[in-house]
């Protein structure tokens, strides 16, 4: 998330910027800390509940620390039909963690996600914003090694 949409100042007081600010904060700090949510609520002049509500509603926002690379393997039916389970298994083996966990070195967070719109390249996954399709266990190893 390098770009702030035109006309949006980070100092703006409007609620319409809340989601944009949350996404920005997440890309800067990796996750949305409690203190940050409180500060944001104060600066926008809205309740903490409103900010926390939005922060916990969306799958791509996280109030817990995350790895530098967030792996999201699609678990929806089109990928399931193309045996996404073996991709899940290979990531588990490579990283030694289960879905929902982060590696101890903070390099990877591993999640399962709903349809990412890459069904024509199933099984597919995302690492951060990049999509990887037509996955095989062999490719997983190379893709993970290439991550910083």
């Amino acid at each position, binding site marked *: 998330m390098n770009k702030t949409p035109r006309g949006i100042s980070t100092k703006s007081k409007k609620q319409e910027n809340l989601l944009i600010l949350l996404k920005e904060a997440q890309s800067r700090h990796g996750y949305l800390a409690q203190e940050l949510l409180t500060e944001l609520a104060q600066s926008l002049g809205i309740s903490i509940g409103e900010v926390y509500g939005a922060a916990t509603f969306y*799958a791509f926002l996280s109030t817990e620390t995350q790895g530098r690379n967030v792996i999201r393997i699609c678990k929806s039916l*089109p990928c399931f039909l193309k045996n996404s389970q073996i991709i899940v298994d290979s990531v588990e083996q490579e990283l030694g963690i289960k879905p929902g966990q982060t590696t101890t070195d903070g390099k990877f967070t591993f999640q399962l996600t709903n349809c990412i719109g890459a069904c*024509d390249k199933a099984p597919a996954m995302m690492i951060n914003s990049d999509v990887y399709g037509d996955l095989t266990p062999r490719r997983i190893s190379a893709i993970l090694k290439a991550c910083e």
Partner: protein
Amino acid sequence: MPENRIVLRNCEIINPRRISTYLARNGFEALSKAKNMVQDQVIEEIKASGLRGRGGAGFPCGLKWELAKNAQGNEKYVICNADEGEVGTFKDRYILEKDPFTLIEAIAIAGHAIGAKQSYIYLRAEYHYLLDSLLKAIGQTRKRGFLDDFDIDIREGAGAYVCGEESALMDSIEGKRGEVRYRPPFPPTEGLWGKPTIINNVETLMNIPQIVLNGAQWFSQMGTERSKGTKVFSVSGDVKKPGVYELVLGSQLRELVEDLAMAEKVKMVQIGGATGRIIPYNMIETPLSFETILGAGAITVYDESRDTIDIVYKTLEFLAEESCGKCSPCREGTEALVEIMGKFSRGEGESRDIAVLEQLSQAMMLSSLCGLGQAAPTPVMDSLQYFRDAYENRIREKQGGVPV
């Protein structure tokens, strides 16, 4: 019937990063033409074309525009719904990747027609990688002077299926949780920030420039009585050639699944994603249209090796996760459906569970706030109608009997 490319006419032909290649294909001629027409003329043309929304609901596009144009107030908005989250759908991704300029032109025409100065493309978080090329395309269009009195901004989602629902989408643009609103009022009268707003799917908009250039009559010659034009389908699952295909509305499901995507030994097809219909192979000749079955055009094909109960179970798990939680029929109902389908999946289902599934489905369809909850029981109801023996066999197996 072979493929007929109206919506996809520029895809794989133009260079999506160079506006000159779009201009060489009559790019922005429709916008110029529309600007020389009065608003009502443009809207009349769209109305006469019979174009209906391609996001799944099929609302007449011209009527939506007319309502917004006639609504009180000077501040109006156009929103392009690019929150393509339906399971098995990727057609809008393909369009955004291959031909952003037609979409931009269409949004500008919509803005002129309803009298809006500002528009938003709501792009799903999963498609963040398309942001850069979209911004570049908007930038090139602005530089050429086609967006002099009109702005297009992009707002990104943050991962929520329900934000493809128009009222949740508007709440999300307003920076809130993407929860569904009570309606009426409908968006054309009270939409984004309470102002008159039209929300159109990517594919719906893609039809606009060609309708303006070639006329309503040209468009309405294609299709069936109540389904004009073409439809873009996303085909995946047990097929040899998954991908995006555009067919004239009214074409048979068989053409798409067997002739184009080359599926074999088909058991059933899910049409319209998680909330869509599930139909057995013996209905493969069903025409695809608003009169019959369509949805947003997600086609997931299952071959004979697949287990119906597991498919429905996984579909319901998805819907329960993605329910926004605002209304209880959907929030609690989807969870209850998952629980019962889980019982069948584990071989613990009982006869009385079928009755509960049917009762609960009826209640959800009648009382849920939006399409998610209203249509969530569809895979359950369809599988009970067409594959009831799958449920009954599980019950018999549990009792130690032999499946039929």
